[in-house]
């Protein structure tokens, strides 16, 4: 053979990795070229570091938003990994040969802009190094795999495993190259667009040509590429300089990051070869131990062990039966060794008593696994990682970076007995930092509910470090160079996407907690914009009271509340204008309205800059009007009473008016319910009120009394025993009975006879009450 040796692989295939190493041993090349981003050769050094634990991934991302990413995962059983490691061990030069990451990202950009540079691009998450044959794009691949599946009656993974992973003795390279060629021929037949593939192959060819030009004999070059590309690399011509210049390029950065099997199985965007990373690693172990046949024993014993660990009984006899059944199933499908699907079905039948759900936990553990990669200290970090570790040190949080769950209590108040201002606000700065991580979705710190009553300077956190958190931090590099910058970006994005004022207010509050006035201001402007459009009174009131919290306690977090004030004023005005019309509602909606009313009242009391007059006038009007929901009117009256704006005379007049015999019982009692909704002591203290109520009730005929009773019962339902006791005293006085006797009657449990009367009410027709 004259040209460079081509070894077609399926990415993430243990058999390919195993045979690749043998082939390398035999070929003794001077240069190994691996399908991967050719501008990121520097990352290889870290992949070969003795402390590195796979899986790891190279992540490239654009610097400018909208951020695009491209990811090359490496598992220990990836042929690429083994090729790189082999070269490192034998002191042979190794390089990536695929398009640079900047071009990959450039393609994505061009695609999204709609420039139509290439039309056959794969999905963004369809990472290029991910699947050998898969990276030709979902269209072609999909259809051919469907066809294969209908032909073989098995899914593609199983087909691959049965046909290729179990190859023994045969020439893996030749077999796989042939498969790649035919697959390619079949996809070309279907007339699909392979533009990106062709460009990539031309580039790879160019890298090979360059290597030859630099003096490496062509036959001493060994290329590891997806088997799909073999034919392309044999036939296509290398890319010219002009063509190379014409490639779109994006400004980007790259980093190495630890990866996890969980992500490898679920997030890599395509379904080939890595649904079960832990199983594939197990196959890799088996190959290096005694042959692929070992895999079945390893899988079944591990599954049994995991199932036992989950608290179930598994006998060795069952494992033996599972092995036998799996072997028979494999034989029925004509393969020498069982595949994952055979093994799984066999274990479900024997160990799982027929249902997969019994084994699900153990199976997830054995097939996907919890393995997380590890990178040695000093690996090129993204700037956001650097910022994270710097702040961790500065804020003395480093000791919390362990796998153990630890608690952290913060006191946000300024400490007056320390020297520097930095130290005085140390806990506050920690709080900002942790909140920013929370906003970024980094699972490092978890905020616990406050244990304080009536104060809010304490904050309680739970911290635990996982490698997942590291991955999340690396991912937030897409949003900014520092933790703060990334958090600001995340908040801005969320704010821009929010569609209700409640959402925007929540984002504002987050920004406030993060100590980021800029982001807060942005959220505020979004909030303001949204509040112009009509919103329900309860939403407006809730938002206003959230903002009010910031104004009142912002000081604690060194937050300047000035920009919030105008918005509160605006919301206050809006709610004052809409409240009265909101009071025209049915009794179901009334409670939401009264809640809003209460909130606005608190708001007004808390802030002097909100006109009191307007509020009082509004309340008086609601209280006086007869055409509103009486529950709301009653509640307005209660507020007026509480604020001391309604005197005894007014109250007694109102009571007389609302509870006069002519008024329908539900309206009267509804009003009373509203009145009793607030400030009960003021009511209880007014004897005249109870006298009037008594008069009113005794004046009702039986039918109306029963109607009224329903409402009154509801009104009194949430009075506390001591309040009821006080009412009893009042009534005792009115009726001239001993207060204690009255209390006894009121406080006693309902007797059977009374219960019967109450039960008869069940058949009462409440209409639409």
């Amino acid at each position, binding site marked *: 053979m004259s040209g460079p040796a081509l070894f077609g692989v399926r990415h993430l295939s243990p058999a390919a990795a195993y045979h690749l190493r043998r082939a390398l041993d035999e070929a003794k090349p001077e240069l190994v070229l691996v399908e991967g981003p050719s501008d990121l050769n520097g990352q290889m050094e870290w992949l070969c570091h003795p402390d590195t634990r796979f899986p790891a991934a190279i992540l490239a991302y654009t610097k400018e938003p909208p951020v695009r990413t491209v990811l090359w995962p490496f598992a220990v059983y990836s042929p690429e990994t083994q090729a790189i490691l082999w070269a490192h061990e034998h002191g042979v030069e190794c390089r990536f040969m695929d398009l640079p990451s900047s071009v990959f990202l450039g393609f994505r950009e061009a695609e999204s802009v709609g420039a139509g540079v290439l039309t056959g691009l794969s999905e963004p998450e369809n990472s290029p190094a991910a699947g050998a044959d898969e990276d030709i794009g979902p269209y072609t691949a999909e259809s051919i795999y469907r066809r294969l599946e209908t032909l073989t*009656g098995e899914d593609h993974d199983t087909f691959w495993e049965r046909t290729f992973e179990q190859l023994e003795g045969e020439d893996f390279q030749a077999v796989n190259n042939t498969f790649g060629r035919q697959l390619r021929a079949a996809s070309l037949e279907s007339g699909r667009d392979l533009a990106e593939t062709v460009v990539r192959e031309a580039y790879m060819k160019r890298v090979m040509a360059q290597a030859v030009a630099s003096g490496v004999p062509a036959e001493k070059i060994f290329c590891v590429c997806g088997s799909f590309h073999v034919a392309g690399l044999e036939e296509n011509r290398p890319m010219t300089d002009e063509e190379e210049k014409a490639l779109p390029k994006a400004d980007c950065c790259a980093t190495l990051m630890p990866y996890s099997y969980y992500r490898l199985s679920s997030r890599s965007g395509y379904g080939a070869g890595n649904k079960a990373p832990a199983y594939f690693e197990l196959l890799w172990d088996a190959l290096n131990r005694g042959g692929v046949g070992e895999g079945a024993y390893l899988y079944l014993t591990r599954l049994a062990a995991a199932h036992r660990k989950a608290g179930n009984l598994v006998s060795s006899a069952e494992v033996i039966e599972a092995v036998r*059944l799996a072997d*028979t199933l494999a034989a029925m499908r004509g393969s020498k060794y069982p595949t994952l699907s055979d093994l799984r079905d066999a274990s479900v039948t024997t160990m799982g008593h027929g249902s997969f759900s019994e084994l699900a936990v153990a199976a997830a553990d054995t097939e996907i696994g919890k393995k997380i990669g590890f990178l040695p200290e000093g690996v090129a970090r993204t700037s956001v990682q650097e910022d994270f570790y710097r702040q961790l040190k500065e804020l003395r949080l480093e000791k919390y970076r362990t796998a153990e769950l630890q608690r952290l209590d913060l006191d946000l108040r300024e400490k007056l007995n320390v020297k520097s201002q930095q130290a005085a606000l140390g806990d506050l700065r920690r709080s900002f930092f942790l909140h920013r991580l929370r906003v970024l979705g980094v699972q490092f710190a978890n905020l616990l509910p406050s244990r304080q009553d009536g104060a809010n300077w304490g904050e309680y956190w739970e911290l635990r470090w996982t490698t997942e958190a590291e991955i999340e931090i690396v991912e937030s590099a897409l949003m900014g160079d520092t933790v703060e910058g990334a958090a600001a970006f995340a908040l801005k994005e969320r704010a821009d996407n929010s569609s209700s004022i409640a959402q925007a207010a929540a984002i504002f509050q987050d920004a406030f907690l993060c100590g980021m006035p800029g982001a807060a201001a942005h959220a505020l402007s979004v909030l303001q914009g949204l509040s112009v459009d009509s919103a329900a009174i309860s939403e407006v009131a809730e938002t206003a009271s959230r903002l009010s919290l910031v104004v009142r306690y912002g000081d604690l977090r060194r937050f300047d509340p000035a920009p919030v004030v105008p918005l509160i004023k605006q919301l206050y005005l809006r709610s004052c204008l809409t409240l009265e019309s909101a009071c025209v509602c049915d009794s179901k909606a009334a409670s939401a309205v009264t809640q809003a009313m209460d909130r606005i009242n608190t708001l007004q009391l808390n802030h002097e800059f909100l006109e009191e007059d307007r509020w009082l006038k509004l309340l008086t009007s609601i209280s006086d009007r007869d055409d509103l929901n009486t529950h709301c009117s009653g509640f307005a009256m209660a507020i007026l009473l509480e604020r001391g704006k309604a005197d005894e005379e007014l109250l007694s007049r109102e009571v007389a008016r609302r509870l006069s015999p002519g008024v329908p019982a539900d309206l009267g009692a509804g009003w009373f319910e509203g009145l009793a909704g607030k400030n009960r002591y003021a009511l209880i203290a007014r004897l005249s009120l109870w006298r009037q109520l008594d008069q009113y009730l005794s004046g009702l005929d039986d039918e109306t009394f029963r109607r009224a009773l329903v409402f009154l019962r509801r009104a009194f339902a949430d009075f506390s025993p001591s309040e009821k006791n006080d009412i009893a005293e009042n009534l005792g006085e009115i009726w001239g009975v001993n207060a204690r006797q009255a209390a006894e009657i009121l406080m006693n449990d309902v007797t059977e006879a009374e219960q019967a009367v109450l039960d008869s009410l069940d058949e009462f027709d409440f209409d639409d009450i």
Partner: protein
Amino acid sequence: MADKNVQRLPAEELYQTELDALISAETEPIPTGWRMSPRSVLTYLTGNTKVKGVDITPKYMGSKRLVEIAIATLVTDRALLLIGEPGTAKSWLSEHLAAAVNGDSTKVVQGTAGTTEEQIRYSWNYAMLIAKGPCPEAMVKSPVYRAMETGSIARVEEISRCASEVQDALISILSEKRLSVPELGLEVPAAKGFSVIATANTRDKGVNDMSAALKRRFNIVVLPTPSDMETEMDIVRTRVAQLSSGLDLNARQPGEDTVEKVVTIFRELRAGATLDGKQKLKTTSGVLSTAEAISLLANSMALAGSFGDGRISDSDLAAALQGAVVKDEEHDKVTWKEYLENVMKKRGHEWLPLYRACRELNG
């Protein structure tokens, strides 16, 4: 050839031509005691091909994989336990497996509350026992005994309905693969190829729960209800056609839309939600299995053939549906009425005649 006047022929006689074709076309190794290779058994059960010019009809229309597992279990001489809701073709599959493997699906023990240990092992012809004393001629061998002698498959139906001592009688047979007859000083070893296929009903769970010891001796395959509408309609259509030709019903085959309606109603009431998943429904107390749908349609065909114009009318269907759905008067009637009003009524004009007919029956 098989006797045409028999109400129901065993599978091996009904499908004799198919079995013969498969046996004569055999190319692969055949396990001891079997009549054909495991792969041919699979072909026999899943069908849809032609072997030597003979159409192989599909017998089991669910997941092919489950059938593979069942066959593989028998190859490894393990006992097979088929579990499922009523009407998920457990007995059907068991019968056809035995027919394909041995050409004999008649070694059956029907599990009931009254099944005794003797029916699993052996009993005596008492007249002869008194006349001659214990001797091989006086012994009445159970189907399991005969299967052990001949190295074939015995079937135990509804194993969870048997009392536990009866179930336990199976344990020694399945683990030792021997049966001892102390009266005759005999130890009968199982010939190669012996196995047991048992079926159990999930609805009977807890009636006589199987002991862990017994369960351990079985490979368990759970048969699901048909996974999608198309499969279920396929099953219903095929089986109704087969049934009606056997029963000489003078009625036309139910139309596509009739099958679709019945299957839709059954699936919806079974799942407790409409097919689009948008509306929750009450479920019925009885099991609305595929088998039930099949017999419902056959039933309507009988009604139409005997008393109508040979075409299934909506009132026939309504009457049959009423009988199938409303098993428990109180609860099911409410469920059914709600279904009629909330779902069927709103389905548009195609469903309207059926709705009216159902409505009439429910006042």
